[in-house]
């Protein structure tokens, strides 16, 4: 979804949004056999397109920012859990668990990936999954392109990740933060140029061997993290940064509160019981704001 401050530019903004999303999907989708990432044989090092190189580079930045809490090399683990196609198809099927030995991994996968300019090397036993960062990168890209090319302010929301660009008429954007309809909601003003991302353990869920699983994995084990938080929302100066911190917080569980506080991050964490914790300068919730929308 794109919101622009100049109605005459809406069609052009939608066109930019669609074209950019299509280009990113064609570069890095795990679910399309014709994507560049799916066709890549990078164990010996392969030249990749500038777009894929940028997307991989951003994913590795996220891994560094989060000290490996968000790792882009968990594609095989997601596939082993049955998440190897669109989530709508995954959720509708019955998945049987294979024999699994839960072992702590000796080394972080992302540290074994090499990107030297446009030459990408990925060890044979790893498979990239850029889902956590590519959507946020796309939101940042689209917001920047609309602002620059069309000369108007824009709010771009891709799957719940929001990026903004330009100067809005009132100096901020009115946004609603809420995961599922039954979750606590909060309305806020997001400053011009700021971004907001929410990661959730309540969506992209399916059942494996009778047990519900979700798509956010602990890189140390390659298995879904304990859903301490229903959702975590973070505001930052880029959507990539916001998404990185929100996803990492899901992975880190309770320790995320201290971690986010130490970073000075503006964050809102909703626990299993629907209780809300905020860090940084996230506006304190008033009683009237906690009502479900």
């Amino acid at each position, binding site marked *: 979804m794109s919101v622009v401050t100049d109605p005459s530019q809406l069609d052009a903004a939608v066109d930019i949004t669609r074209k950019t999303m299509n280009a990113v999907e064609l570069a890095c989708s795990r679910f399309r056999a014709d994507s560049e990432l799916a066709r890549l044989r990078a164990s010996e090092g392969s030249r990749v397109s500038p777009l894929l190189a940028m997307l991989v580079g951003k994913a590795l930045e996220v891994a560094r920012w989060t000290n490996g809490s968000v790792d882009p090399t968990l594609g095989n683990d997601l596939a082993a859990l049955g998440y190897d196609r669109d989530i709508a198809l995954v959720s509708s099927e019955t998945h049987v668990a294979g024999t699994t030995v839960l072992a702590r991994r000796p080394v972080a996968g992302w540290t074994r990936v090499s990107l030297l300019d446009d030459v990408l090397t990925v060890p044979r036993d790893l498979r990239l999954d850029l889902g956590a960062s590519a959507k946020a990168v796309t939101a940042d890209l689209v917001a920047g392109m609309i602002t620059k090319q069309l000369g108007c302010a824009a709010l771009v929301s891709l799957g*719940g990740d929001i990026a903004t660009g330009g100067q809005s008429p009132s100096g901020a954007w009115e946004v609603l933060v809420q995961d599922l309809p039954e979750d606590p909601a909060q309305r806020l003003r997001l400053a011009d140029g700021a971004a907001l991302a929410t990661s959730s353990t309540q969506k992209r869920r399916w059942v494996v061997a009778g047990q519900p699983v979700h798509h956010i994995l602990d890189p140390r084990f390659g298995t879904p993290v304990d859903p301490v938080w229903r959702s975590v929302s973070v505001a930052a100066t880029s959507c990539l940064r916001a998404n990185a911190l929100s996803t990492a917080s899901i992975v880190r569980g309770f320790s995320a509160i201290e971690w986010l506080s130490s970073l000075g991050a503006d964050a809102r964490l909703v626990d299993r019981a629907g209780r809300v914790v905020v860090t940084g300068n996230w506006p304190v919730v008033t009683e009237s704001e906690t009502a479900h929308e």
Partner: protein
Amino acid sequence: MDIRSQGKRRAIVVTAAVGLVGLVTTVAGSALLWNDTAEAQSASSGTVNNQRSGSGSGSDEGEHSSFSFDEDAPSPNTNAPQLLTPSQGGAVQGRSSGS
């Protein structure tokens, strides 16, 4: 990125303009010393090489028995801009939810 190996002690030194410095102690007496450049780095240009020394195309030599993402707490960003303020009502222009 400059990667060096000193026997069992490995150090990964990531050089860049600004950032936070931390020290992670890991198993087998190895340590990762890094300079987390956060948003200062641009991955769209230059070189990004995360490989540990001697890992060639990615195979690990087995000196590490496990890894962790625990680390020393970085310094808070006390100069952070005000990104969020309370609602003033009006039409909602965007919604942030998980996906």
